[in-house]
């Protein structure tokens, strides 16, 4: 049961410890990069949320970010590690966008709801007992761009899981804001049949850039359940539910 640190750019060689749970193994397999300044518990929290996203909700292309988005020039640090990923279905649609989609459907003479591409989302992990301030929310928003860039952040390693498309087992690259250098695959393979909103040179959805930024706040409770809330950086009217 040696817990030696995993060498950086090789596929996992951590011996699997059968006494550890899947989550524990996952946390062990993913060490933080050396230049990350966050505390260990913040990193583990992020990993636990990432694990939940991957295995409970089927998110793909999950990346961990330790530095502010390159677009955000003014932000100097990211207060805590942040996750970005692609949900299996579209997670949030503004009510006005919904109206627009329905109108377009009507104009084209189609019925029902069209296929809408999922959009990449930010996830900010947190524990339910934490106390936050408005300032911390402000800092988190200021450090993140409106749309998570595909090439930023480090990917996660998952030893014994069924690999979903586009999430080949690769380790976390050195610096979170790296350009994905050193990753053998040429970008993540696209999922069949869908059009990603910010890949392949597609223009970003105008609803994404025109509306205030949003993140998903993940709240981890003591019973290891994680519940997600959408937080908008501005005044956004609620959706119809």
């Amino acid at each position, binding site marked *: 049961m040696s817990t030696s640190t995993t060498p950086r750019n090789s596929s996992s060689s951590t011996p699997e410890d059968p006494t550890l749970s899947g989550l524990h193994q996952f946390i062990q397999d993913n060490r933080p990069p050396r230049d990350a300044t966050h505390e260990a518990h913040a990193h583990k929290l992020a990993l636990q949320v990432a694990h939940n996203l991957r295995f409970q909700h089927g998110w793909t292309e999950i990346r961990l970010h330790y530095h502010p988005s390159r677009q955000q020039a003014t932000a100097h640090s990211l207060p805590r590690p942040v996750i970005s990923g692609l949900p299996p279905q579209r997670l949030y649609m503004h009510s006005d966008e919904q109206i627009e989609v329905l109108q377009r459907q009507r104009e084209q003479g189609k019925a029902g709801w069209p296929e809408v591409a999922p959009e990449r989302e930010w996830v900010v992990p947190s524990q339910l007992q934490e106390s936050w301030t408005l300032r911390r929310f402000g800092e988190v928003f200021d450090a993140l761009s409106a749309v998570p860039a595909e090439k930023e952040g480090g990917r996660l390693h998952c030893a014994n899981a069924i690999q979903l498309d586009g999430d080949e087992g690769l380790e976390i690259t050195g610096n979170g804001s790296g350009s994905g250098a050193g990753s053998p695959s040429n970008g993540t393979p696209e999922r069949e049949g869908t059009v990603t909103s910010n890949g392949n040179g597609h223009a970003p959805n105008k609803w994404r850039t025109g509306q205030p930024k949003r993140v998903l706040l993940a709240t981890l409770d003591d019973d290891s359940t994680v519940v997600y809330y959408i937080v908008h*950086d501005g005044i956004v*009217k609620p959706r119809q539910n």
Partner: protein
Amino acid sequence: MPNVLFSTIRRPPPKSDDMSGSKPSSAVSAPVPIYLVAHRYMLYDIDTVLALRRDHHIIGTLIGTLPQSPQQNVFCGLPLELMPEEARLLVEEGVAYVVDDVQAHKQGFLDRGLSGEERKMYVNALQRQGADAGRVTRIRAAERKERGLAQQRQKQARKDLNKSTIEGADTQTEDGDEIPSNTLADPTCTTETGSVSTETDKTVNEEDDAQGHDSLFTSREDSISAREGSRSATPVSVRSLRHKLTVPDDEIQPITPTTSYPPLPQHPNKDAPPLPTLPLPTVPTSYPLFKFLHSRGYFLAPGLRFGCQYMAYPGDPLRYHSHFLCNGLDWDQDFDLMELVGGGRLGTGVKKGFLIGGEEQEGKPRAFCVEWSGM
């Protein structure tokens, strides 16, 4: 003796053609006074209330009991109570000014406002109103009594009629011309049982009064009043009541005037010493958020119903549901994530967003909206 509230009923202000303009109605002169009574900010004038709602999207809360339905508080009337935030915002914008109501009344009535003569005239006017009220009440009571008696008589007559027809009585029923019209307040009582005559009354009824109409009415009254032991010992007919000029002292009803304007001048006297200017109303720390949302055109109402500070409506509350449950905080104020979660879930459950916000820097408010993601 019930207190009678008499209000000066004014005609509604003329409808202005320019509905889109933001000019206040001509009936309201800016800035308007907000009356501070025991740390509450009140408005009593309906024109002011409407103007504030229309032009400045300030709603307030109606807290007055409706005289038509006093035993409920779902619907209330004037006066309107303003939140301290609303009052402060209006003062800051120069739309209104705060008046210490107690001080103003003391000064107006006692110190210098009214001379002894004016005061006496006012008191006499109130007394005359009270006498009128007393008379009207008395007349109404007598009319009610009459109607009750007529109904009772009809019932009795019907019973007798049934009895007489069953017994095969041969008293011919004629139309009830016997019953003189002016003893009964409303002649409609006789239409249904018009065939019933007083003869059946007289023959069968115990309280036999074969006398004239006056005594028919009065003797009944007498007997009834004797039974009930009513106040008025002397029987009076409605007709005589109408012409009574002098009202006994115990029937003058006390009047509570609802406006101070008849005795006090509508606009303050120039020579009078000015009332001390009050400081701005004290507001909680959520005031910057209130101001921010107000500047975005939202109508804000107290949020006690949902456990938050304000409810933000995108338009008039009579037309829209609220969009947000708002909590204003200091930028560095700690709050439990559980509160955010609770607010977010509650909001999602009632189709509203949960909004928290504060001032990031002086004059730069910022807000965040929370809703459940569905995951």
